């Protein structure tokens, strides 16, 4: 649907603006979201019209047949009524129209449903997304296992390509939702859900867990970065590399603190001995835009605050506070910043 009627309809729906945004189904950036948005505008138009008609009929009835308060006559015989037949015809016609509209909606919905769920090509890029309380594990599958890429809370996809997403959850039910690209799909423990997404223009789209999953359901978001295929390939290649060797003493010390301290009990950095899997993989932490599943921007200051006191930003999350002497913290931060 083009932008013009969109805007017009938005005004019609008394919308208060806001058809744009990184997490907005009305700012569709992929064919599926586009299809659904089209359905939305059609349904909105028709249902708004029906609602206006109903309310108008009610208002007219009120206006026509109201009795002034002083002329109120609540007792005694009600007025005899003789218009059953014409009323019957009107009601029957309305019901008929309702049935017709609903029938049309149903068929239309079926058709779009088939389009939205059409199976992706076999050789499509495949991403495994695992929802954890409260972060997203992302794995780019490759038939050559040594080219598998593991990252967290951030998904890069090439523009104009269908991307298969395999969804699973090891703990509770989550729901994967990037409104600008597609509707949501639940991650149900014990089952694997497969669907696909596609972006038709580059951009960053925010996604969020849409099924209530506990304390930090509110802070379980992620970003989908749609890039031109070349940029995407470059990113993927970069992600395939292990973490770089620390360039200087400070960062070397930071790495040692990481791999010997509590960090390595939960996190992994490829290229070091830290290979735990209970927290997000941090191999390319510095290349991400946010930390803590979209809770904080990825800056040195936020990172330090997050490491020292994660529970005040995201109460209940699984990361314990880490008490480090300031010098050690600086070294650790310096090292983490090298993880491009």
């Amino acid at each position, binding site marked *: 649907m083009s932008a013009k009627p969109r805007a017009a309809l938005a005004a019609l729906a008394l919308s*208060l603006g806001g058809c744009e945004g990184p997490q907005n*189904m*009305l700012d569709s950036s992929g064919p599926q979201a586009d299809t*659904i948005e089209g*359905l*939305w505008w059609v*349904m909105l138009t028709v*249902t708004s019209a*029906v*609602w206006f008609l*109903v*309310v108008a*009929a*009610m208002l007219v009835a009120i206006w*026509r*047949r*109201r*009795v002034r*308060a002083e002329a109120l*006559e*609540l007792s005694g*015989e*009600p*007025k005899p*009524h003789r*218009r059953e037949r014409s*009323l019957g015809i009107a*009601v029957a016609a309305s*019901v008929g129209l*309702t049935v017709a509209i*609903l029938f049309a*909606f*149903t068929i*239309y*919905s*079926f058709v779009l*449903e088939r389009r*939205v769920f059409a199976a992706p090509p076999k050789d499509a890029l495949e991403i495994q997304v695992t929802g954890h309380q409260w972060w997203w594990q992302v794995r780019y599958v490759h038939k050559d296992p040594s080219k598998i890429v593991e990252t967290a809370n951030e998904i890069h996809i090439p523009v104009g390509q269908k991307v298969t997403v395999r969804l699973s959850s090891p*703990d509770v*039910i989550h*729901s994967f*939702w990037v*409104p600008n690209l597609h*509707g949501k799909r*639940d991650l*149900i*423990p*014990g089952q694997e859900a497969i669907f696909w997404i596609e972006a038709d223009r580059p951009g960053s789209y*925010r996604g*969020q867990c*849409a*099924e*209530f*999953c*506990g304390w930090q359901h*509110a802070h379980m978001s992620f970003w989908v970065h749609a890039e031109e295929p070349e940029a995407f390939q470059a990113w993927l290649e970069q992600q395939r590399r292990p973490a770089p060797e620390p360039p200087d003493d400070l960062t070397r010390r930071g790495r040692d603190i990481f791999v010997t301290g509590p960090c390595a009990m939960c996190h992994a950095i490829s290229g070091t001995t830290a290979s735990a899997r209970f927290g997000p993989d941090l191999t390319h932490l510095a290349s991400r835009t946010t930390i803590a599943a*979209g*809770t904080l921007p990825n800056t040195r200051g936020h990172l330090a605050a997050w490491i020292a006191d994660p529970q005040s930003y995201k*109460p*209940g999350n699984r990361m314990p506070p880490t008490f480090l002497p300031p010098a050690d913290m600086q070294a650790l931060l310096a090292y983490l910043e090298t993880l491009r």
Partner: protein
Amino acid sequence: MSDDVLRPMEEREAAAKLTGAWHEGEGILAWLSATGHKTTGRRFVLTSFGFFIAAGVLAVLMRLQLAVPENDLIGPDLYNQIFSVHGTAMMFLFAVPVMQGVAIYLVPLMVGAREIAFPRLAAFALWMLLFGGLLLFVSLLLDMGAEAGWFAYVPLSGPEYSPGKRSDVYAQTITFSEISAIAAAVCLITTILKMRAPGMSLNRMPLFVWASLVTAFMILFAMPSVMMASTFLIMDRLIGTHFFNPAEGGDPLLWQHLFWFFGHPEVYIIFIPALGMVSHIVEAFARRPVFGYVPMVLSLAATAFLGFGLWVHHMFASNVPQLGASFFTAASMMIAIPSGIQIFCWLATLWDGRLVIRTPLLFVFGFIFTFVIGGMTGVMLAAVPLDLQVHDTYFVVAHFHYVLIGGAVLPLFGALYYWIPKVTGRMLDERLGQLNFWLMAIGVNLTFFPMHQLGLEGMTRRVYTYPPEMGWDRLNLIATVGGVLVALSVLLFLFNLLRSLSVGRLAGPDPWGSPGLEWATSSPPPEFNFALPPVVTGRSPLWEAGEEWPVVTGLKLDQREVLITSVLDAEPDHRTEFPEPSIWPFLAAIAVGLTFIGSIFTPWAVVAGSVPVAITLIGWFWPKPGEE
């Protein structure tokens, strides 16, 4: 006929004798033993209204937390409990029981009966409701409130992810309220089918009675599903069964199927009685019988029937097969048809009537205005692709509040304004009533309309806060203001009610000039409802009555004797004596309640509790010593 004209003297004598037989007595013991349907019904409504207010306070707290982004008024743990208890209380402790309470009060009056069938069972239902609600709210105060949402999806509510006793409290609250609802439904069904006034054949039954009948049947068939589900849940949590453990062959989706097989009909259980209320109000204030009685009744039945066939539309985002999803889309679209029929019939009635605009009718206008929006968004949600986008967002929050507030709460308030004069004998203040309406109507729309937009903009449900950069703050603030307005409107209603009790205008038997049998007796009605039970000859008895008012004679006046009639045509069949008030239902409810609450802490409570439960039930059914 004229030979049988009764003298006023006879009526008064009869009333005196009947008072002796039906009086409920004084004192605490008598108070706890009271089983009369008006007492029970009033208490039902008051109890559930109390829970409504408590849950409403929670709603305001939530709105305050969400008024600004990254608010730290309420942390995630408390917020989760608050919205879970809000939802659970509103659905299980307010919406269903308040409708049942109104029905327990009104149905016997509307069908011209002296009493509800199985009055002790109805009293038991009341106590179960009260104890269940107390359990839920006291637990919340103890930091033990339900925390996994009102639909408590496993595994989040399961043994691994909900430690402590919070979800057990949720599961047992459900059990309490389901037992209450089922018991009340059995009473209502029997009353409606077997205790109607002679001549009130099925096709002359008032629409609210029809709605209550349909609802009661829905309760019988829907509630067992959630009872089994909550039993499975609590067994998973307490004795280690594996119904929902995907590792050992269970399935989290089993919960969703069971829950929504109940949960969707639940919406209609709440909303069908409201449709009945609307019909009565429209009829009274449009001054003509509702247009299309037969289509109305058929629509109610069709809604109930279809209501069982679309539970999966709550699960489109889970792994349900494509074909199944399509079926449920069609069913969900179809259910809009009976609702449409009813709306059109009311519009026709209004169109043809002479509208006396009073508070109850205003609430009906508000109902049509808001409910149709909820219905329209409901149609949108039925479409799988669109549902995938808006499911679990604030769009859905907006949708179901439009349906439940628009479809049930506004009619309920209209009904309260309409029928409270019958209950208290005094009129509510009309000006305050109109103010109440406008506050509520504006408040509701201000609260929930922006939520549609929020949902489209990506705000998901059940978040305790949201980041400032998302641009959701303005609309949330508006919604919070609206929420406060709704709270004010409810306060205003309470004020109006309390005020009317002392200074309200006396109502008289029929202040609105309504046609139903409930208006054929004094306000408030005597404990035996009708000194001379009426005989019915049409759908609008008081409007159709001529000079003569046919009544039933021959029932014993010194005993609690009631007339049982046949199912279809309400022909007198036999008389039967009803039981005295009794303390046993209260004691049985205590025993059952302690058993349920104890079972949260040890499964042996079920074994230990069975003894007092058995004793109280035997006491309940044991014939009184003096009986023949």
